[in-house]
């Protein structure tokens, strides 16, 4: 059991998660943002570690990564910043980023460090199932970290079953095959897709990500899944002045 498992055991719906890029807009505010989000009532968090070539991201998160790197964010520095994580934040935390920085840091060392500072889950979109299963699953397990996989409308039922079997927290459901920052799709096809997933009775709860921007899209997502993740819209807020003060209002707007 980690904090993610405890959360999903205790709360089955309307879960809200927020993504933000560590080191953006300023280098030193990672924990301040996390703390403010917890206070505002967010259930769990994804902290992004920046990468120079984020192929699954749209312009907003790309830009945040670029700025974070210019500010000097690295995995080493992020882990230093997170040393006090569990003194200040109690909700589940996931680290999200691309695989190459993890390879350079060392996969085992990365997992060890993440567990030490109190991280609960990892999302690495470009780490494929085959490599995870054959090379890394044992390491993740040793450090009690959940690895989170994504599912798109194109993912086959067989593969979704496999992902469900490999997961032990939640499944990251994409509303469409898209990069971050694309609007939530609500066509008939998409409703069918959500229904199809629901009908599969998966072991792990599903959380919908990409394209959640406001109360309406959040509520819609919660009809079909246990909750939703807001990324791009929140990263845009961070570009504004006094962003820390604006966090409670932002969250209130999403879940009234």
């Amino acid at each position: 059991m980690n904090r993610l498992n405890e959360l999903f055991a205790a709360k089955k719906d309307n879960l809200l998660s927020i993504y933000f890029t560590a080191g953006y807009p300023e280098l030193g505010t990672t924990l301040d943002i996390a703390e403010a989000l917890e206070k505002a009532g967010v259930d769990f968090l994804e902290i992004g570690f920046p990468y120079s070539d984020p192929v699954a991201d749209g312009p907003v998160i790309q830009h945040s990564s670029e700025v974070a790197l210019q500010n000097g964010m690295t995995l080493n520095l992020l882990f230093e910043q997170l040393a006090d994580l569990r003194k200040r934040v109690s909700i589940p935390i996931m680290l999200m980023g691309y695989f190459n920085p993890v390879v350079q840091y060392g996969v085992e060392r990365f997992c060890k460090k993440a567990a030490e500072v109190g991280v609960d889950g990892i999302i690495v979109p470009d780490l494929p199932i085959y490599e995870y299963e054959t090379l890394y699953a044992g390491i993740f397990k040793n450090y009690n970290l959940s690895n989170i996989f994504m599912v798109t409308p194109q993912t086959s039922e067989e593969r979704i079953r496999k992902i469900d079997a490999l997961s032990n927290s939640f499944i990251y459901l994409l509303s469409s095959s898209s990069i971050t920052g694309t609007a939530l799709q609500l066509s008939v096809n998409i409703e069918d897709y959500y229904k199809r997933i629901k009908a599969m009775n998966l072991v792990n709860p599903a959380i919908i990500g990409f394209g959640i921007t406001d109360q309406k899209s959040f509520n819609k997502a919660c009809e079909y899944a246990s909750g939703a993740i807001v990324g791009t819209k929140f990263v845009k807020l961070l570009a504004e002045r006094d962003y820390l003060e604006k966090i409670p209002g932002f969250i209130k707007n999403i879940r009234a």
Partner: protein
Amino acid sequence: MKIKVCGLKYADNIEAVSALGPDYMGFVCYGPSPRYAGELDAGTMNHVPRSIIKTAVFVNEDKETISALIEKYGFDAIQLHGNEDAEFCAYFKGQVKVIKAFGINEAFDFKVLDDFSDAVDLFLFDTKTNIHGGSGNSFDWNLLDKYQLDIPFFLSGGLSLENLEEVKKISHPQFYGVDLNSKFETAPGMKDIGKLGKAFEIIKQEPMNYGVNEQGYYGDFGGAYIPEMLYPNVEELRREYLSILDDEGFKTEFNELLKDYVGRPSPLYHAKRYSERYGANIFFKREDLNHTGSHKINNAIGQILLAKRLGKKRIIAETGAGQHGVATATVCALMGIECVVYMGEIDMARQAPNVSRMKMLGAKVMPAKSGSKTLKDATNEALRDWIANPVDTHYIIGSVVGPYPYPDMVARFQSIISLETKKQLKEHTGSELPDYVMACVGGGSNAMGMFYHFLDDENVKLVAVEAAGKGVDSGHSAATTFLGREGVLHGSRTILMQTDDGQVVEPYSISAGLDYPGIGPQHAYLYKIHRAEYASATDDEALQAGLLCCQLEGIIPAIETAHALAHLEKMKFKPTDNVVICISGRGDKDLDTYIKYFGF
């Protein structure tokens, strides 16, 4: 390579040989032979595993006797050593496998085999003797070059532990297997199990495998490190590419377009003044003479035909120098398919003529404005486009990079370069194998195409030349193997230039086509296991070499290609060395750069 052990007769010996697991076992049913099997033990014959093809060997026997023996012992194949004609062979074909044996010497006329082409399953080529059956001597295997039919053959005659390594080098496309007999015996008909065991070991020892495995890896390199959003696209390709490439209709269309549209085969030109200067026989493989001016068109043709077969309606591509973009725009015009090319904003400025060319060909050119605004960012943008358009769009990657199956697929399309070279070199020099093969490396597609059919010939030295930019240690370089470390870039595990923190480093080269921070995973593998040598040439060295090529051979090479030419200055050849260098593209697109540099 199949193994046939022939001339068995003793029950215990038959069992011991079966245990080694040959593909065929032969029993001589010809009285005068010292290995005449005579009455075989039915129980023993029944115990031979079904996977082993039991073969009865006859010399001018009548049909009835043969049929009776097939019936009696359950033979799966017959091998005919006498004067049986095609009609006689055809009588048994379909019922059992039919192997017709011929004795080969200088005087043998391979035309006599034509009659048998519909009547037999296999030939067996033995040493010509006056008696029927083995002599224990081998014949001159070079004579096999004269055999042109497409029926596979066994090689027989004097094969021993001493010459099996030589046998393994026979590269005839129809060479099917070896027939082991008299050199593996303690007495006629009594096989030496120890010696056979050694022979099996030698034969089964695969040559070092440089190709991709089923999971898409070359050693530790390769794979498909892609987000789930790309999985269905890449999986569809992985599932389909080999069967499409293997399809006769596809091959015909591909080869016809290469011939009539691209202008292949591209010449292999003996560069005499270069040969004089560098003291070796230097040959240029002229990919610069292809339609659109570089090797990139080979891959673009292959992929557009593949995309059509997958029912795709829209093509995207990335481009650095613009050569791949132009090649892609060209094949899209040819097929009437919508085309979008992503190109770094900086590259659009330095390769402006190619931008116009793509537009004239009807393609939409989209500037990549993120990151360094060069090739790697154009690749990112193309991948993002593909994520958003998973169903109707095919992404034509321009080099041997990207997630599996791209590196293998692109290498296969470019392998036409070395396939032609082998044949052409044989005409020039009498041997299809050169001493050196050289090419420049950006992502590595022209180099992979140039290396492909030489990979297994360990005597052919492979030399790849990267762009050192302003010098390997200058901080402005694209010499990936010198400056890079293992990691993941654009979907594959490879060697890339990166910071300690795993951020991709901006490469630099005067040539946009080599200005890439990684290399294809197969190159990373060839580098790591030292199968190929990776060198580098600076901007200055390349430009000087480009000019030298103009003035010595009347050929203006692309600046990419000029890097490979530049490395000739650092090579030490023997006068007898044959050296093939891939002239990957022509320099028209680079005139501005040349002119500025030399002030013409």
